[in-house]
């Protein structure tokens, strides 16, 4: 019983009405399916389709905009690369648990891929170990991936995204669509190296699950660090001077990541709440298309 996937789909229906869903579908198709000269079918235009794919003659004949579908040249394999360390069990900016947002994002993108017959897989890992669930093209498999993501707990080993990326670079062969599900990692030289290598191997989308704010009005009253399990005195951070320092440090950290991703041609979306997921992923695909 694919309960997680059902939940994802119902949320997709809640957050995006039919048109927006179709939009997302078209966006995915035009970004990733690619086209060949082998004509497949004509179908009704949905917003998000490439304008140049519109078959104007057929449109003129029928009075409805139609687009040409070609047999895809590329069989796209979607590989989610997710940090499944205990960081993912921590709070997100919107107050939810980050893994819930990750599950939704993964479910939305995964079901888009499945709709287009693209298999989905998952590389997961933490500081101790990493592994992968190879790509398959059925919903039960996607459900399995979502379950793996959902199983993250605070008692899991600490997170190490760079190690997961390195595992991906070593073990995932062939060009894939890699969707990285990460939180607010601090980039260092090791991370930059592996990203550079991954960007050469694969097409990468970067979904950042924003961490809870630690200073200012949005901060939780009492927090503890999942890495060290020590308390974080967020109350102290109500001090305006300290909150200011914090905001600067966080902005600096994000700029470093954004610069690195941009340098490697990787599109980035920041998600802080499940309500941002559908729109955010649409924006991500749009940005990815422009970046190519």
């Amino acid at each position, binding site marked *: 019983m694919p309960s997680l996937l059902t939940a994802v789909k119902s949320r997709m229906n809640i957050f995006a009405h039919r048109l927006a869903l179709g939009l997302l579908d078209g966006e995915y198709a035009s970004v990733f399916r690619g086209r060949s000269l082998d004509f497949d079918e004509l179908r009704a235009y949905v917003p998000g389709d490439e304008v140049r794919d519109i078959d104007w003659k057929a449109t003129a004949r029928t009075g409805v905009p139609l687009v040409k579908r070609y047999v895809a040249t590329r069989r796209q394999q979607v590989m989610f690369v997710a940090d499944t360390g205990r*960081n993912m069990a921590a709070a997100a900016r919107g107050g939810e648990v980050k893994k819930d947002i990750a599950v939704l994002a993964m479910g939305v993108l995964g079901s888009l891929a499945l709709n287009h017959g693209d298999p989905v897989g998952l590389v997961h890992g933490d500081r101790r170990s990493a592994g992968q669930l190879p790509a398959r093209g059925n919903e039960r498999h996607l459900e399995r991936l979502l379950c793996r993501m959902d199983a993250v707990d605070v008692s899991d080993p600490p997170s190490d995204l760079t190690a997961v990326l390195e595992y991906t670079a070593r073990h995932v062969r062939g060009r894939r669509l890699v969707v990285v599900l990460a939180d607010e990692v601090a980039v260092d030289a090791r991370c930059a190296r592996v990203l550079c290598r991954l960007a050469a191997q694969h097409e990468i989308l970067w979904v950042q699950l924003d961490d809870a704010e630690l200073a200012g009005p949005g901060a*939780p009253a*009492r927090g503890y660090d999942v890495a060290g399990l020590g308390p974080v005195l967020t109350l102290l951070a109500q001090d305006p001077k300290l909150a200011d320092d914090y905001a600067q440090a966080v902005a600096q950290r994000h700029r470093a990541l954004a610069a690195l991703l941009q340098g490697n041609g990787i599109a980035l979306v920041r998600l802080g709440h499940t309500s941002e997921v559908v729109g955010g992923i649409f924006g991500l695909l749009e940005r990815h298309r422009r970046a190519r």
Partner: protein
Amino acid sequence: MALKYWWLLPLGVAAIAAVVFRLWRRTRQTPGRVPVAHADRLTALPSYQRAVAVQRRWLAVGLASVLLLAGSVLAAAARPVQAATTVPEQLNRDIILCLDVSGSMVDTDEAVVAVFAELVTRFKGERIGLTIFDSTAVQVFPLTDDYGFVAGQLELAVKALNQDTKSFDFFDGTYEVPGSSLIGDGLASCVRGFPPESGAKRSRSVILATDNMLAGRPVFTLAEAAGLAKKANVRVHALNPNDYGSADYPDVAASGLKTAATSTDGSYYALESAAAVKSIAHKVQATEAARLQGAAVRTLSDQPALPLGLALLSLAGLGAAVWKVRQ
């Protein structure tokens, strides 16, 4: 220094330990704490570390204050006491100075009165009276504990007994019948000066300064007067400046006085000089006081100053810490 309720200490320490343990357990598993990742975004900031260091210092001060407060209050609750064993001196003595004011005695009388003028300044509860006699006895003042009045009277007496004095008004009434040093009558008058014995037991003594140079016919002989004294439970301490007897040839007058004094359970002193009066008077007073000493009493006095002072100090520290931490 001892603790009266010492068993409170282990109990209290156990209670404090239990409270600390429970609080510690509770902070370990507080619900409502939000797990956050990448806390180094905040904790790596130098300004955060500074703030935490300050916070931690004040928390340490607060914790130390709380522990000190608990400890000192516990110590105070255990009642630190100072144990002391005291022999209470009962100050219920009655003393009548019975002075022979015949010519041969004035030196001694002056010394006796001077000593008691000094002693009376330290009296608390004792009563003193003064009777002088030669051929007849005159009560200068009866037994009283009005020390202001007594001091005034004794001062007058010292002046009057001084050899350089010109006025003999003080001795009025002591030559009403022929004779001199009618010592039996004098002592009897002094003994009559004590009120009848009542419930409260008071030590009664007569300081009798005389040389027993009897001239004339007294109503009471010395022996009879001593009998009266004994019957009235009065001890006679006799001071004789003119005891010229030796062990081999006892002075008849002196030995009579000595027998009379000792028969009342009192004492007899032959004076070498007037200067010796002081030490003898003190001695007599000491023995009289010693007779009345009660049973030794073990008293415990509370000594809460140190623990309560510490508690106050720790309260101040706690207040400062709370104020700073809440800031």
